């Protein structure tokens, strides 16, 4: 008991100190302990950023992603296995479960060894496709490092990726050249959760060094159809990154000097910076959005706390909706800015949207932006919902849904008849009837005796 309590406390403290927005327990699966030294700079970079690294061999008995049904680690870094696969505790199903429980995975492959079929089938579930032979490398005769791969042309030199689309943020950009030795290529399916981070150049192609050159008959994919680094973000915003070249993380390539065939100028690689960006994104240090307060209320000036977030509106009410969004950037939340070509939108939906409005930033706090929109509730009663559905590559998903009831006019909210000028005629008619009736009753009662007399005389 004592132990578990202190463990909890420890975890809590660890989380507080962690830089990632979702914990710092990082499991590194490394088959050969000797290889660990090759990546020394990489490990120390991670540790410097607050991660608590645990190294395990895939064959180890203690290796388990889960502890009593809960995640035992927050993040998982998989280096390519030598043998046939990762073993039973890292089966594709376990890794998918890990993703479903909001764990983040960075999987690095290498073109040097054949990728195990278990990994291939895991990637298939994520709609990432490897070449059928699973042992190709990307070769490019125009963008290779003339210093280290003069013959094989399999060390690719690439510019760092910029914006993927005009409406996304660039998390991997910067100056410098990336060197990707022995990159295993993959292609992307049409799953919208998958986004490429780094594509191969148009002149690249996939080549299997173990087969004869002439044997390549069916071209699987070429050029920039081949992706080298890709990201998959699940609906629950857990992240999976596939890195085609594990060697690019090695110390050797962090500070290598490379030379492109064209101009022949020697430069140092930006691999270290890129690795930082890649792990930071994968382990949720960047591109994490958080929704703060959500408020909706009638558009009026004197608001009390009871007026906030009512459960019921009336048709044609004037309504204001506010949402507070902040973005996590390495170690703190900062106000979220929507990319220039994009918009954060509010939908007012019942079965289909009745309103789709752009949320404009109305105010800004120290670490969040408040977006708001004002609109008139449509002339349709029902159960509506305020929805903010913002899903962009590299940003965690915002899917907010707040149900409110929109009711009809109550019977005493319609204009009274006397307020409608058209009704005056009939009101006058009604009252003249009633007045006539009263007058008649009086006259009748007054005339009673005479009439009775008349009757008698007749």
């Amino acid at each position, binding site marked *: 008991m004592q132990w578990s309590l202190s463990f909890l406390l420890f975890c809590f403290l660890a989380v507080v100190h962690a830089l990632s927005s979702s914990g710092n327990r990082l499991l590194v699966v490394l088959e050969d302990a000797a290889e660990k030294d090759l990546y020394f700079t990489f490990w120390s970079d991670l540790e410097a950023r607050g991660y608590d690294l645990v190294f395990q061999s895939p064959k180890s008995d203690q290796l388990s992603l889960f502890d009593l049904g809960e995640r035992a680690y927050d993040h998982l870094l998989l280096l390519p296995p030598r043998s046939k696969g990762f073993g039973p505790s890292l089966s*594709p199903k376990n890794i998918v479960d890990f993703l479903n429980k909001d764990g983040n995975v960075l999987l690095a492959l290498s073109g040097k060894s054949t990728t195990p079929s278990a990994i291939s089938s895991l990637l298939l579930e994520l709609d990432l496709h490897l070449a*059928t032979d699973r042992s190709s490398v990307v070769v490019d005769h125009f963008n290779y490092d003339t210093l280290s791969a003069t013959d094989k042309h399999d060390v690719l030199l690439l510019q760092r990726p910029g914006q*993927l689309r005009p409406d996304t943020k660039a998390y991997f950009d910067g100056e410098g050249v990336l060197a990707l030795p022995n990159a295993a290529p993959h292609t992307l399916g049409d799953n919208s959760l998958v986004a490429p981070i780094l594509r191969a150049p148009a002149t690249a192609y996939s080549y299997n060094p173990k087969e004869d050159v002439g044997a390549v008959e069916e071209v699987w994919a070429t050029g920039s159809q081949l992706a080298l680094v890709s990201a998959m973000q699940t609906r629950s915003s857990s992240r999976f990154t596939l890195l085609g070249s594990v060697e690019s993380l090695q110390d050797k390539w962090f500070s290598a000097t490379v030379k492109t065939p064209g101009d022949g100028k020697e430069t140092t690689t930006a691999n270290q910076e890129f690795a930082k960006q890649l792990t930071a994104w994968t382990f949720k240090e960047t591109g994490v959005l958080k929704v703060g307060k959500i408020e909706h209320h009638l558009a009026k000036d004197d608001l009390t706390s009871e007026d906030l977030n009512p459960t019921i509106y009336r048709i044609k009410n004037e309504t204001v909706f506010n949402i507070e969004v902040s973005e996590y950037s390495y170690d703190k939340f900062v106000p979220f800015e929507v990319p220039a070509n994009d918009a954060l939108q509010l939908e007012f939906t019942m079965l289909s949207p009745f309103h789709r409005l752009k949320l404009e930033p109305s105010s800004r706090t120290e670490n969040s932006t408040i977006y708001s929109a004002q609109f008139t509730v449509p002339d349709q009663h029902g159960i509506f919902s305020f929805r903010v559905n913002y899903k962009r590559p590299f940003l965690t998903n915002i899917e907010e849904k707040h149900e409110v009831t929109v009711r009809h006019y109550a019977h005493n909210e319609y204009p009274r008849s006397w307020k409608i000028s058209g009704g005056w005629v009939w009101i006058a008619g009604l009252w003249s009837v009633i007045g006539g009736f009263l007058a008649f009753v009086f006259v009748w009662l007054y005339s009673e005796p005479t009439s009775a007399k008349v009757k008698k005389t007749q």
Partner: protein
Amino acid sequence: MAESPLDVLLKGNSGRTTRGLLRFIILATIAAAAVSSRLFSVIRFESIIHEFDPWFNFRATKYLVQHGFESFWDWFDDRTWHPLGRVTGGTLYPGLMVTSGVIYHVLRFLTIPVDIRNICVLLAPGFSGLTALAMYFLTCEMTTSPSAGLLAAAFMGIVPGYISRSVAGSYDNEAIAIFLLVFTFFLWIKAVKNGSIMWGALAALFYGYMVSAWGGYVFITNLIPLHVFVLLCMGRYSSRIYISYTTWYALGTLASMQIPFVGFLPIRNSDHMSALGVFGLIQLVAFADFVRGFIPGKHFQRLLTTMIIVVFGVAFVGLVVLTVSGVIAPWSGRFYSLWDTGYAKIHIPIIASVSEHQPTAWPAFFFDLNFLIWLFPAGVYMCFRDLKDEHVFVIIYSVLASYFAGVMVRLMLTLTPIVCVAAALALSTILDTYVFATNGPNPRAKANEDTSSEGLRSARKPDVGITSYFSKTVMTSSVVVYLLLFVAHCTWVTSNAYSSPSVVLASRMPDGSQHIIDDYREAYYWLRQNTAHNAKIMSWWDYGYQIGGMADRPTLVDNNTWNNTHIATVGKAMSSREEVSYPILRQHDVDYVLVVFGGLLGYSGDDINKFLWMVRIAEGIWPDEVKERDFFTARGEYRVDDGATPTMRNSLMYKMSYHNFNSMFQPGQAVDRVRGSRLPAEGPQLSTLEEAFTSENWIIRIYKVKDLDNLGRDHNTAVAFDKGNKRKRATKRKGPRVLRTE
């Protein structure tokens, strides 16, 4: 020996008061019998609301009691018809809820704390006692014989046709509506007889109350004008008719327009046009009659012809123009289905799908009315014998109600009162004829069932023919036997057929003891306790009110079938493949799907048996996507076993019903006890839903709708992956590859 004190009691002035007292006691006894015979269900089961509609009424009443009348009036119900909601306050007949609300508050004021549920449960029996009373008054207007009134009251009190809708717990509009119907008719007859504005106004007030209580008020709206019209055609116009009808119509129409649900219908809807037409007609007739007082016949004829031609021409053109231009709504669908029994089946499956709207089977008449059904024509004949205005009313009522009762089971209810009146007339005539055939000592005494004294009296005077001792004995005793049989039949029917709450099922164990099957409540309480307060439940509309009432969860559709498209959407979701249904479920925010399955127990009222109606209703809206034909085999059979069509076996309803059903049996031995067929060896696979709850006898099965797959796969693939099946790359890509552009 015995008759001398009786004679003293029953004769003269003291006799009048004695008879009055007796009559009062008998009426009180009848009312008590009427109430107590309806309590079977409470004794057998418990004090619980029955069936489907009463659950809504109960829920509405609770709302009314809790939130007060004002907010009840404006009630927007966001827990039904998700996500459309329902303007409940403006689309219901509030009479029932307001009545029990008033009773509740009166009792509270008298410091009698009563649970509102008990008021609701016992409202129908209470009002049935009042109905018996109203019946007495109505029948007394028809005949001079006091025994007829008492007989009619007794019949009304225990006749199964009425008990069927008014047992304790059957908290439905009909519970008070039949009382109002009978009482309104009584007031109307009174008005016609007296020609007084007051009775007419009272009739209008009760008509207004009736309008607020039941949609069947249209029956009164059409019957009274028809009565007046027939009287006019018979040349019986009199100022009494003018006074009573115009008063009733003017006040009654205004009163009915006060109900928001009815609103402008009385002047817009064709159902109400006959009343308006007769109103206009009687004005003309009155005017003509008035003018006739001044001029000789021949001139009057000419004047009349001119007037008639002009007026009818104008009226006809006006009606056509208004109907074509849409100012007057066309006849409502339910009304059409009254005239043409095939109409509903073709055009409005939703109306035809309700079992209450099916044509009546012949045995049902005898079952519900017993020997009254053959006394009924005799009673109508009695009315022809002395044809006063009120008898014309009885005849018209009989003819109309008989027809309607033949068309719709539910309208048996409107037939019942007039059957009681007519049968009581006939029976009392028989009794009067036989018992007082000779100038007996007390010709005006009531001749209910005191045969012993009658027999003794006639023993003194043996005679031939109907006055003979023998024939009197035979007649009276046979009548008594019939009456006793009737009582026995009523009791039997009530206790066996009409006292089941249908929420709780009862079955007999092999040893004869009663076994309660409580799956409905089990499931509803599961929902209540294990799901989020706002979890949306999709089920077929039959169970909407119960889910709303017992589980207190929002539903998509319920028994108030105001939106056919929405119901068809549910029907489509149930009858389509999972891939089609799932987006529908997502779009409507459905969290759980509830189906009723009787296959394990042999409970025939389950969803597979109702399934074809879902298909038909969905087909009405999406004829291209749902086709009833696809659910039948090539030989036109509706099957669930190996021979079932692929459409059937892929439909969501089939999958949900038979999901895991195989696991209850030995391999290959799964048998559906309702359809009596052996099921396929391999059960259906569900991928978009997962089983959440199945009740003890599998009657209710609840499924949870899965969220979208976290990895963006479709559900089939995800389920296959979870089961450990390796995905074949070859099956992955069909057609040309899609290139990503970014």
